[in-house]
């Protein structure tokens, strides 16, 4: 696709330099993180900026075992994978009902689901915490999974409903004539068509759930179930002076999202701009 070339500014070179300068500020901190993670603590003191002269993987090993990052990554993975999967199911079903099934109060329910976003998460943390404590879901991963799925529901339902609306009615009607149940239609007709929306929703959810701090901090407090971001946040107090070790931990925590970013950049930007442009 050709984009318009505008000539309203001083010069291409100046613009290139400005963009490059901003790019340096976004990339350099990450490069610094990687280079520092590969240095020993002693080398970092003498050589904070340069390429490591004696590269070592010891910091990663220490973070993985002694820092329990291996365990935290496992906990985060369990929570996020389960929450993403359940959210797919919940939001697809709701989206299908809201886009292709006619029933009383459909529009009202759609607005109610979206409207629940008005309740900012911070407002509910206290009762939610005490409720999960009361029903014995505190310090259980399933508690956090349920909370994540709930938080993902309004946006996910909105996304799936908008996408399903673009699927022609005739397809659904044809499948009904063939005697397919609504669940079969959702599973075999709608979901294959809605693949892009499914992928967008999954990646978007993976990203914020993996990165989330507040709820995982409150709901999963014991070490056995602690998630990665809480582990990272705790690093700060313990190892502020050991920057290489800290950097290794940060690199381990950032790697999954960086991989997703590199593979799914397009879908990610679709999910993150949804609702902005009509």
């Amino acid at each position, binding site marked *: 696709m050709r*984009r*318009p*070339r*505008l000539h*309203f*500014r001083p010069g291409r070179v100046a*613009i290139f330099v400005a*963009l490059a300068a*901003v*790019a340096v500020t*976004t990339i350099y901190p990450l490069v610094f993180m990687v280079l520092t993670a590969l240095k020993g603590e002693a080398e970092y003191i003498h050589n*904070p*900026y340069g390429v490591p002269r004696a590269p070592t993987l010891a910091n990663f090993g220490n973070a993985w075992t002694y820092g329990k990052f291996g365990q935290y990554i496992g906990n985060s993975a369990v929570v996020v994978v389960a929450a993403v999967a359940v959210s797919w199911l919940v939001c697809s*079903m709701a989206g299908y009902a809201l886009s292709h*099934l*006619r*029933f009383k109060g459909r529009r009202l*329910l759609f607005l109610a*689901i*979206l409207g629940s*976003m*008005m*309740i*900012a998460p*911070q*407002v*509910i*943390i*206290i*009762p*939610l*915490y*005490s409720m999960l404590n009361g029903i014995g879901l505190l310090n259980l991963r399933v508690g956090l999974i*349920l*909370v994540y799925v*709930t938080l993902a*529901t309004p946006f996910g339902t*909105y996304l799936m409903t908008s996408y399903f609306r673009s699927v022609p009615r005739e397809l659904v009607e044809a499948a009904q*004539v063939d005697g397919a149940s*609504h669940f079969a239609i959702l599973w075999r007709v709608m979901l294959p068509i809605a693949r892009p929306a499914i992928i967008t929703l999954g990646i978007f959810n993976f990203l914020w759930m*993996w*990165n*989330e*701090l507040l709820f995982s*901090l409150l709901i999963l407090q014991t070490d056995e179930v602690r998630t990665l*971001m809480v582990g*990272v*946040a705790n690093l700060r107090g313990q190892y502020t002076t050991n920057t290489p070790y800290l*950097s290794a931990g*940060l690199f381990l*925590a*950032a790697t999954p*999202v960086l991989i997703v970013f590199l593979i799914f*950049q397009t879908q990610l*930007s679709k999910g993150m*701009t949804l*609702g*902005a*442009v*009509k």
Partner: protein
Amino acid sequence: MPKPTTTARVGYLFLTPAILLLLVFRVVPAASAVWHSFTVWDGVSAPRWVGVANFAELLADSVFWTAVRNNLFVVLSVPLWILVSLVLALLIHQETCGWRFFRAAFFLPSVLSPVIIGTLFTALLGYSGPLNRALKLVGLEGAALDWLGNPATALPTLILVILWGIFGHGVIVFLAGLAAVPDEIFEAARLDGATGWTFLWHIVVPSLRHVIEFWGVNLVVWSFTSLFAFVYVMTGGGPGYSTMLVEYRLYLQAFEANRMGYACALGTALFLMVFGLILLQIRLMAGRDD
């Protein structure tokens, strides 16, 4: 073909998980939070009804007002966040040499967790950290401040770090907006000789009005409700109360001071502050759908 009544039943059935989750984990806790804001409660023993005492205390609480002022200071920086993202998006949109790379490079920070961003920058900006060491190396001793440890610089520094984490998301949003603007509009402006700020203000801003509105409302809501992790990791609300935000005060009162009732009142106040904004956000997102 299923009868209409069956269709309706399936409709309700398919919506049940979503509605049930939202009721149990969002609506009921919200109602409970409002109710508890009229009580003294430590989260363990039975709450005791005290009427509006919590709200009276809130209004007289100088830390609360400091937090509100800090929140408003963050909101005041939102136009800057919008401008930075908009100008960068515009420059990329012209397909400057290497634009694909720049788009990816700017987008990169916005996929990282605030926890990672905050921890990384706390290390970079430490008093004897890499930034200050570099400043001293080039002879700028005076510029080597205790960025996050000094009440005067802590909040602006925090805001800049948040900007670092978020501007790329804005760039992506504005690029999506620009892609939807017909080429002819910009071409015509170019032929008319519109340049620089005139071009930005009179051509770009009007064509992207809805996107700017959408993004602006999003940012304001975020600045009230999504900065917890940055504060938790970077400053803990300090030094003093210089980076205390309402949501962080709520967290501390609830989970450090065990004053759940008072914290619920803070939550209710926060809800009232952002309620209208989020309503606007939802309307911008879904309103033009119908």
